[in-house]
């Protein structure tokens, strides 16, 4: 069953900015059993550098984050290197304050809109790719890969330019289409319009991943299944719902989870486009933690917000991993 989620090879693995669990061929490791009698310690020695790095560079910051969230850490304590524990005060402040829950609600909504759009368009474009002729498919693939490969910050500046108030192409087009009030529209002036730009940017960058991998997955569906379906008298729609969809389901689940995680913690695009503005109205949780913690120098409070965000992400991630591991039981 692993093919569906692993079927990224055909795209040559261009994944990266959001690359996922490995795509390259497997298989040989299932029967690579003979335990080396000489060196029981050998595998552990080989793994030592990687483990050490993980514990020190990933584990310690996580622990540190937890510790900081129980400290009163403002500019004074920071400069004088004071450690003042203040129990759960930071959490009390965060959880009872008016801002946090607003930001949570906003982040959830933001993530939901993005993921729904990404999955819908990604799936449709992936299915379209499977239907196209060879030349047309290659053309569209090139377009998708270009959008995919664009570095976040480069893409963000390009979108700022596309949506610029003066001389921006988008405003010009809207004006020509008859929406004259948009001629000099300031896209970064309101919460809704800023989010629209960010969402368009993220969807544009994320759809190629879903579309290309979904297309790759459809190529692994055995032809016989369709033949059998049409022998049974299934029409196009029926063979889609009875063959294509069930086959792609695990892939779709896994990808949806991945997108939820990626969008929820998206930082560069959301921050770089308008630094969370106007009036801090486009701050999602990661940006909020940064602005509170570093911008406003409430490091302890920022750490508490971070910690809560990490917890939320950890829960989603463990669901995702459980799902993937179930599908790939035999691969491990």
């Amino acid at each position, binding site marked *: 069953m692993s093919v569906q989620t692993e079927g990224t*090879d055909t795209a*040559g*693995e261009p994944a990266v900015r959001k*690359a*996922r*669990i*490995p795509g*390259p*061929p*497997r*298989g*040989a*490791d299932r029967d*690579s*059993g003979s*335990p080396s009698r000489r060196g*029981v310690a*050998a595998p552990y020695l*080989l793994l030592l*550098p*990687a483990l050490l790095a*993980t514990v020190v560079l*990933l584990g310690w910051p*996580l622990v540190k*984050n937890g510790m*900081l969230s129980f400290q009163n850490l403002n500019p004074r304590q920071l400069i004088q290197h004071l450690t003042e524990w203040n129990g759960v005060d930071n959490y009390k402040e965060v959880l009872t304050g008016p801002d946090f829950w607003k930001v949570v609600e906003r982040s959830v909504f933001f993530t939901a809109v993005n993921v729904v759009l990404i999955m819908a368009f990604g799936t449709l474009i992936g299915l*379209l790719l499977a239907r*196209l002729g060879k030349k*047309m498919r290659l053309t*569209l693939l*090139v*377009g*998708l*890969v*270009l959008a995919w*490969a*664009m*570095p*976040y*910050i*480069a893409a963000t*500046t*390009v*979108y700022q*330019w*596309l949506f*610029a108030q*003066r*001389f921006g192409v988008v405003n010009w087009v809207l004006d020509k289409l008859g929406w004259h009030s948009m001629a000099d529209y300031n896209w970064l002036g309101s919460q809704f319009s800023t989010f629209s730009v960010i969402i368009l940017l993220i969807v*544009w960058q994320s759809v190629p991943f879903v579309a290309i991998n979904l297309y790759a997955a459809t190529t692994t569906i055995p032809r016989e299944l369709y033949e059998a379906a049409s022998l049974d008298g299934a029409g196009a729609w029926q063979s889609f719902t009875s063959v294509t969809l069930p086959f792609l389901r695990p892939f779709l689940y896994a990808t949806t989870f991945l997108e939820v995680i990626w969008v929820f913690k998206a930082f560069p695009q959301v921050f770089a486009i308008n630094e969370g503005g106007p009036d801090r109205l486009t701050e999602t949780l*990661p940006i909020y*933690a*940064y602005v509170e913690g*570093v911008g406003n120098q409430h*490091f302890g409070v920022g750490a508490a917000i971070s910690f809560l965000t990490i917890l939320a*992400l950890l829960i989603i*991630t463990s669901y995702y*991993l459980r799902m993937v*591991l179930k599908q790939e039981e035999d691969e*491990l």
Partner: protein
Amino acid sequence: MKRSLFGRIWPNATAVILFVGFVFPVYWMFATAFKPTNDIISEDPVWFPTNLTLSHFQKAIHADHFWTLVVNSVTVTVLSVVFSLVIALFAAFALARMRFRGRRGLIVTFMLAQMAPWEVMIIAIYMIVRDDDMLNSLVPLTVFYTMMVLPLTILTLRGYVAAVPKELEESAMVDGCTRMQAFRKVIFPLLAPGLMATSLFGFITAWNEFPLVLILNKDIEKQTLPLWLSQFQTAFGDDWGATMAASSLFALPILILFIFLQRKAVSGLTDGAVKG
């Protein structure tokens, strides 16, 4: 299967529209970068620039600190990719070729580590780095970027190692190689395409990284290109030509690498040697 004229046309028409939609921002970046300023600030957009200029690029590369930042970005990216490849190679070999207690748990750990929310851990990392007096230095950036790309590098390489037939290694050992020699002379050369594909992931992650350098290095001399680019437009006061030239310069290595390495990685894998 016969399809109606409409049925044949609509997928292609949709594909063309989508192609334009996905490519346009990239095209517009390059087009703006090469356009004379008059064409950029014109009431009607110049869709296909005819007289091209390099003046925006000159402005971008002559911006203060540009070359320092290029050197910084390249240093940090290359070093972290190399470090993570070396560390990952050992780990991947163990995970793909050996059986031992805790193997499965370790794989799951690396999977989890790959999803680590670095964007939200920056405050803690800031405090750690500050307490070690390492703010405004390239060392912590290199070290943490190495860790950011390490899990995926391990997991990907593990797949590539596993794909090299065990028999090749065994026959080399029968011929008198030690396990180390067998690895160096037989497996390693076959891993080259895998190493390249894997390094592409790492390269892009490190080249793109933004939140950590934003919080750690306030000193412009120690920053990297993404941070510079994010502040470029403000610094140059809506000079879109120069901003797009800067974006193009920043994006170009990735776009090239993507096209180049992607093909290499795929062809390497399908070459004879790896077929079982």
